């Protein structure tokens, strides 16, 4: 519950960023560079004199968009493939070896390698983060399909003449809803963290769009002089991911997933 409330506040913060006494996230005021937090600049300013509070609030947008899109896309693609792979035995054996191989590559390295070949943009960050998640979703879906395939309701449906696509859609998919919703929250949380990692390493969101990761990346040279540039976006990031994880844990208990 706490998670839902915190998440709602953060989402409202991002969606209506211009309302919350923010300024222009890109406006530079060289005279006020590296100002520590004061009345006019609650979170201080960065090395270009940009207001860290404004940038942090605007940064919410990128994180939430990336988190939501990656989890939805990952789920859609992963579920579709997982259903098909789980239901056809021949495909299953080969594809699971392929999935094992893909999952042996640490997700962050795969995402970094993908970003190295694409221009930095929010769209490409989403692509680079979805690809490593797909095999993981496929695995969850496939495991459930394997056990459900032998269920008597599927046998019954077959006896009544239902074809495979119908069985997958109306018998298997509904039973998968609960574990997938829980999985989606965890994907969302890790996507938000990974976006920050990529941006921090200079291979994520381009500098002209403020994101928590790239605000901190620009602040890293000034840790000793202006710690606030890193402190506040990081707090927002940790709080958001924590809220999503709490929602995920809550859902897991309510929906009784494993």
């Amino acid at each position, binding site marked *: 519950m706490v998670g839902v409330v915190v998440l709602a506040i953060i989402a409202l913060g991002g969606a209506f960023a211009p309302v919350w006494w923010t300024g222009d996230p890109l406006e530079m005021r060289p005279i006020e560079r590296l100002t520590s937090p004061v009345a006019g600049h609650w979170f201080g300013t960065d090395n270009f004199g940009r207001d860290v509070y404004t940038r942090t609030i605007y940064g919410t947008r990128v994180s939430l968009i990336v988190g939501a899109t990656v989890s939805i896309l990952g789920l859609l693609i992963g579920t579709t493939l997982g259903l098909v792979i789980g239901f056809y035995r021949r495909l299953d054996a080969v594809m699971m070896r*392929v999935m094992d191989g893909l999952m042996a590559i640490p997700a*962050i390295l795969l995402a*970094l390698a993908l970003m190295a*070949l694409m221009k930095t943009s929010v769209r490409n960050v989403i692509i680079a983060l979805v690809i490593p998640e797909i095999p993981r979703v496929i695995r969850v879906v496939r495991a459930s399909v394997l056990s459900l395939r032998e269920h008597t309701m599927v046998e019954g449906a077959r006896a009544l003449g239902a074809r495979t696509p119908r069985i997958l859609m109306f018998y298997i998919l509904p039973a998968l809803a609960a574990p997938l919703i829980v999985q989606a929250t965890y994907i969302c949380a890790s996507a938000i963290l990974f976006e920050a990692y990529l941006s921090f*390493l200079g291979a994520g969101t381009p500098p002209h769009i403020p994101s928590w990761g790239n605000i901190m990346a620009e602040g*890293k040279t000034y*840790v000793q002089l202006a*710690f606030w540039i890193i402190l506040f976006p990081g707090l927002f990031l940790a709080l958001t*991911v924590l809220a999503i*994880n709490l929602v995920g844990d809550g859902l897991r208990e309510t929906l009784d997933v494993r």
Partner: protein
Amino acid sequence: MFPEILRRLVATIPVMGVVAIAVFALLHVTPGDPAVIIAGDYATSEDIAKIRAKLGLDQPFLTQVGIWLGRIVRGDLGTSIYSGLPVATLIGQRAEATIALTLFAMVISVSVAVPLGVLAAWKKGSLVDRAVMVFAVSGFSMPTFWLGFVLVYIFAVSFHWLPVQGFSPIERGFWPFLRHLILPAVTLSLVYMALIARMTRASMLGVLNEDYIRTAFAKGLAPRWVLVRHALKNASLPIVTIIGIGFALLIGGAVVTESVFALPGLGRLTVDAIIRRDYPVIQGVILVVSGVYVLINLVVDLLYVVLDPRIKY
């Protein structure tokens, strides 16, 4: 036992084959001509042609796959476009810092997380249990590099107890080596610690309900003895499994942590290679790291036999 080890080792070959092909295919599935992207914005058509020839991109696709696999089998990871040095040499130079960092982080995490998890399970529902769970959830949620900066700010910038960043090779003395690694290793270990503590608690909870635990307590054995010898030993399989699987997290975290603390490891090598679009280096690192990951999980599989005599191969 020995034939089983051999069989398992052989079973990792297809997995590594998939990794090798996937790493190779990366260059080709991404939109655009890889040679143009690698050459950068200011390249002449001559530069592009040179890179294309160097990477073998002018050959038919299947020939390229064949050449690539053949080279890997021989242990040849190619040469860096930027420095002209063999990728294997570059990886060798940078391995020390990363191995030291990840090993240190692993030792810290396991030695803190397992006792915490056992304690939380034993005192289920108590304040200690709740504190451990809160710690575990926050551990998952904190961005690694941010935690690194916070620790640097507290222990290096404010108190001057530890160096801000940098690395000191072990040859130059053990104490400087350790001093430089404490903050990065603690930073890196947090996520891993959270993961292991959570799994230890869950696994212990399952075992503590068993009859033989009640019997052991009823016999009047000391709680410490029961928890470690009776409960933890039987709860250890999932814990060891998560230690193996979580190694991927550790590697991912190492890339970011090295960047925060300016450690000359594989993570820095990768990040630099990405900025320079030095693709052979990126491919080499991914291949080696994935290989290590597969091997670690193989060792975990074999450890099962040691931990649970009922499992026979």
